[in-house]
C-alpha cells in the first residue's frame, strides 16, 4: 500500500476491532493523558494499557519505534526548558545565574508522559487501522463523503507530490540549476520549483475532479461499500464502556474545581 499512512498489516485482534472502538480507545487515552494526576499514573497507563494493547496488535516494534522517535525531541526540550525555567528549590545543576531544578525536570517529564499517552493512543489507532476503513466508519456515522475522500486522497497523493518535486528538481539540475547548495540559496531555488508544481497540481485537481464525476461520486442517493466493517454487540458495549470511563475521569478531575 503506497500511502503516507502508518498502517501496518497484521492479523490481530486489535486490527479486527471496529474502527469506532479503536477511536473510543483513543478518546479514553486522550482523557487519561490530561486527567491523570502525576507521572507514575501516566507511566502506569502507558505500561499497563498501551504497551499490552500494542503487543496484542502485534505492532509492538513499530509502536515503540515511532513512539520513541516522535517523543524523544519533546522529552529533551521539555525537560531542558522546564528544568531551567519552571523554578523549584532542588537545584541539580547551576550554570551561572541559571539553576536546573529537580522540580522543573519532573514537570518537564510529566508533560512528556502526558504526550506519550496521547501519542500512544493515536499510534495504536493509526498503526492498526486502514485509513479507508476508518473513513468508512466515520462516513457511515455522518461524516461528509467529500471530507472522507479528501483525507484518503491526501494520504495517497502526498507521496506522489514528493515524487514530482524530486523529478522537477532533477530536471532542473540536469539543466544546470544548482539545487544542492546552502539553505538560503536553496530557498531561492524553491521558487522555480514551486511554479511547475502548482501549475501541474491545478491541472491535476481539475482532472481528478472530473474523474470523480465520471465515477458517479456526486450522484445523489445512497452509496454502498465493498468493505464491510465487522461490528458486534460486545464492541458496542465496549465502546460505551470506554466513553463512560473517559467521562468519569473528566468528572473526577473537574469535581474539585467545581467545588472550589
Amino acid at each position, binding site marked *: 500500500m503506497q500511502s503516507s499512512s502508518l498502517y501496518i498489516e497484521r492479523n490481530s485482534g486489535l486490527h479486527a476491532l471496529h474502527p469506532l472502538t479503536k477511536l473510543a480507545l483513543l478518546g479514553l487515552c486522550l482523557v487519561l493523558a490530561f486527567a491523570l494526576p502525576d507521572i507514575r499514573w501516566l507511566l502506569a497507563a502507558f505500561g499497563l494499557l498501551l504497551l499490552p494493547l500494542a503487543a496484542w496488535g502485534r505492532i509492538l516494534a513499530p509502536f515503540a519505534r515511532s513512539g520513541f522517535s516522535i517523543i524523544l525531541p519533546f522529552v529533551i526540550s521539555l525537560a531542558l526548558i522546564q528544568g531551567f525555567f519552571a523554578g523549584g528549590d532542588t537545584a541539580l545543576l547551576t550554570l551561572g545565574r541559571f539553576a536546573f531544578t529537580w522540580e522543573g525536570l519532573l514537570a518537564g517529564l510529566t508533560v512528556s508522559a502526558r504526550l506519550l499517552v496521547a501519542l500512544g493512543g493515536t499510534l495504536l489507532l493509526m498503526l492498526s487501522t486502514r485509513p479507508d476503513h476508518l473513513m468508512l466508519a466515520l462516513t457511515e456515522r455522518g461524516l461528509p463523503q467529500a471530507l472522507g475522500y479528501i483525507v484518503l486522497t491526501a494520504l495517497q497523493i502526498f507521496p506522489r507530490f514528493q515524487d514530482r518535486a524530486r523529478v522537477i528538481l532533477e530536471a532542473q539540475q540536469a539543466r544546470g540549476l544548482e539545487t544542492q547548495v546552502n539553505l538560503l540559496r536553496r530557498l531561492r531555488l524553491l521558487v522555480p520549483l514551486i511554479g511547475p508544481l502548482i501549475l501541474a497540481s491545478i491541472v491535476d485537481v481539475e482532472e481528478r475532479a*472530473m474523474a470523480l464525476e*465520471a*465515477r458517479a461520486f456526486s450522484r445523489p442517493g445512497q452509496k454502498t461499500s465493498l468493505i464491510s466493517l465487522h461490528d458486534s454487540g460486545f464492541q458496542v458495549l465496549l465502546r460505551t464502556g470506554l466513553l463512560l470511563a473517559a467521562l468519569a475521569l473528566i468528572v473526577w478531575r473537574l469535581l474539585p474545581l467545581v467545588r472550589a
Partner: protein
Amino acid sequence: MITLKHFGYRYPNTEAWALRKISLEIPDGQFVGVVGANGAGKSTLCYALSGFAPHFYRGKTEGRLHLNEVDVLESSLGDLAGEVGLVFQNPFNQISGARYSVREEIAFGLENLGLPPSEIETRVSQVLAQSDLSELAERSPFALSGGQQQRVAIAAIMAMQPSVLVLDEPTSQLDPHGTREVFANLDALTQERAATVVLASHKLEWLAAFCDRVLVLHQGRLVADGEPAQVLADEVLLDYGIGGTRYTLAARAAQQGGLVSAQRALPVTLDQAREFFR
C-alpha cells in the same frame, strides 16, 4: 440513440467555438471513431457527449444534445454518471486516490452507484478477467505503469456498464497488443450489450479495423462522417493534418507510382491491403 442538432460549444473566456454546428445521430450499439488533428475538437466532443462540457467546464452551448429522451444540456453530471461513461486521456489522474487496490479502485464507481456488494464483486471480477487485470487486482493503482493505469481507467468505467462509453485517446500509452485488447473489449460491448462506444484516437489502423463509423473533425466542425473504408481512405484527410492509415498511404503511393491500377479502392485495413496489392 445520441442526437446532436446544430450543436456548438465554446469554452469560457474564449472567442472561438471549439465545436460548431454539429448534427448527427448515433444509434445504440454503434462503435464510432473520432479523428482529427490536435486541437480539432476531439476531446471537446467527448466532454460534450458525456455532459462535462458544459456541466464541468461551464462555457456556452448552442443547439441540442440528447441521449435517448434525456436532454444532456439540462441534466446534472450526477444524473448522467450511470448513463454515460467518460475515460479521458491522462490515466494517472483518473485514479480516484481513495482506494488502495486495483480491485477496490474498479469497485469505487459501483459503490457510488449504490449497487449491492455482491453485484459489485461479480462485476469487478468479470471486468478484471476481461481486461487481463486479474494479476494486478491487489496492487496499488499508483504502483502501475501508465499503460496498466490506462487499462484500469477503462475497466473502471466499463464496470459501471453505462449505455454510452466515451473514450478520449484511451490507448495512447498502450502497446499494439494492449490496444487490440481494448478495442476488442469495446467491440464486444457494442455487440453483447448494445452499448454505444465513441472513441477518439490517432490510431487510424485500429479505428479502421473495429469501428462501424468514423467522424472527422476539423477546427471544431464535423467535416466527414461515414464508414471507415470510405472516410479513412479519403485524400482530404491529408489536408486536415490527419494523414491516413499506413495501408492507405502505401497504397496511394503505389497508385501514384503506377504500380497498381488507379481504379482500385484504397485499403484501410491489413486485409484490404492484402487484396489491394494482390
